[in-house]
């Protein structure tokens, strides 16, 4: 049996399951179609795309998406790396600590947003408000004064364990004798990190960054529940924008056009990210 046949089921499944709806979306994007006005569905050509391109606000929405994605990727990788390094040394209770650290990644985004919005960041009842009052500081109104930072904090909280987990598994395949040798040569911890740990981490980092890039471009549940994209449009990202068009306005034509553009945009961003992290997905054996 030729090995390539093993690829066929997955390929066929994905083509059918993703391309059929996608092509339908492309088709809808050429119509003016409001779900609540059923009998009026004129063909408008590239009209919907034109609407998206001519509204300067949409530039802001794209920028928000990238800012959110980049901030979370950077923060979660840096904090995740720190956690991975801390967890890779022996200390009392290590197995339990390691196990517990993954917890925040297991929480449903909607739950995260509800808990953070109401129980932590609420300027009157929130726990953070109480802490800052104990410190003699005024309560901060996170979601309206620092909306994007608040969303970044929530999403980073969710995704840091993911980075930490993958980086930790990467660390554990690092042969101990290499580190020993480096220490005997009188390497400082910084040199040790730079010349031994980091190069070994490249593959794990690539996995983390690429996957996070793709997943984080789709973040919307947290925004939906906590800020509804506001104040103004300061936390409206592409997926949330599409949500608004499709379900707050029932403008299916425009939402479809935005969906098609989102695919192109995400492709673009992730290929740039790939280039920045220096390597490319290796096809088969490197």
């Amino acid at each position: 049996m030729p090995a390539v046949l093993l690829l066929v089921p997955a390929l066929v499944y994905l083509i059918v399951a993703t391309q059929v709806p996608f092509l339908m979306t492309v088709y809808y994007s050429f119509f003016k179609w409001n779900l609540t006005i059923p009998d009026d569905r004129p063909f408008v050509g590239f009209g919907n795309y034109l609407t998206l391109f001519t509204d300067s606000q949409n530039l802001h929405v794209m920028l928000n998406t990238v800012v959110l994605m980049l901030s979370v990727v950077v923060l979660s990788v840096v904090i995740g790396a720190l956690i991975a390094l801390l967890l890779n040394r022996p200390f009392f209770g290590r197995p339990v600590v390691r196990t517990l650290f993954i917890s925040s990644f297991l929480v449903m985004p909607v739950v995260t947003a509800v808990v953070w919005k109401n129980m932590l960041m609420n300027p009157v009842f929130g726990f953070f408000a109480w802490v800052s009052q104990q410190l003699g500081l005024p309560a901060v109104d996170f979601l309206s004064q620092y909306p994007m930072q608040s969303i970044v904090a929530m999403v980073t909280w969710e995704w840091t364990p993911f980075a930490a987990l993958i980086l930790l598994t990467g660390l554990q395949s690092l042969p101990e004798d290499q580190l020993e040798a480096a220490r005997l040569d009188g390497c400082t911890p910084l040199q040790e990190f730079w010349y031994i740990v980091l190069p070994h981490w490249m593959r794990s980092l690539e996995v983390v960054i690429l996957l996070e890039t793709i997943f984080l471009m789709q973040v919307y549940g947290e925004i939906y529940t906590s800020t509804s994209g506001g104040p103004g449009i300061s936390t409206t990202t592409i997926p949330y924008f599409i949500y608004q068009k499709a379900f707050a306005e029932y403008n299916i034509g425009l939402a479809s056009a935005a969906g098609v553009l989102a695919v192109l945009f995400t492709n673009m961003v992730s290929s740039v990210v790939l280039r920045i992290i220096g390597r490319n997905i290796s096809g088969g054996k490197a």
Partner: protein
Amino acid sequence: MTTTLPSNRAKAARKDLLVHIKGSLLTVLTYLLLFLFLFPLVWMVLAGFKTEAQAFATPPIFFFTPTFENFARALETYGPFLKNSVLIVGGSTLLAFLLGVPAGFTMALYPGKRTKSTLLWMLSTKMMPPVGVIVPLFLIFRDARLLDTHLGLILMFTTINLPLVVWMVHSYISEIPFGIIEAAKVDGASLWQEFFQVVLPLALPGIASTALLCVIFAWNEVFFAVNLTSSDASPLSVYISSFKTSEGLFWAQMSAAATLTIAPVMLFGWFAQRQLIRGLTFGAVK
């Protein structure tokens, strides 16, 4: 020589002490970080045991007599949703693996000219924001009579997870030293033997962590679950949504429901992650 010995010894002792202090500080830092990451969750679980009035009291209440009323109420409707979640998440993970593992295996060991672009294309199917395709999907589901069925969501979540499975399995198998597989081929192993006896054991930790990710993503998916099911096949993400209300104050109720929703995947994640890291430490022989 003899005069320098004691001072050397003292130096060594001082160095030991420094290392020890540094180690303790790092351990403290680890626990501190863990506390910060767990706090939102702990706070939520605690709120589940409070009365509604206690849940948003200012200043926050840390010590209280727990009430089990919220959990009792939340448990009333919990069962069917849990059953649906387990069925759907299990089914979709299984299906994604049946399709994805052979594909990843083939692409890693028998790469062709198009392997790289196929992989990238598969990943790119994840770049469509779910809300962008919900209308076509809903119509397809309606016509295929898949609305509110387990099979429907299993197919949906398989679509979501399949690219991840292929990509990660491919990446883990690619890391297996080429020599081991070559040796098996020279020994005249068939494709099946090669897969089950050589590759699979070596890639197992990686495959296990992929399964863990699939379960987490499927468990926590809200958007498709809410829109493609209504009652018979609704998983826990719909259950938790049904506790959100725009009228009334139900933080404690919500917290109890959220705790119940994330508890199974949390326990699973903790357990699987311990196994995973153990597997990885054993597996890191190459």
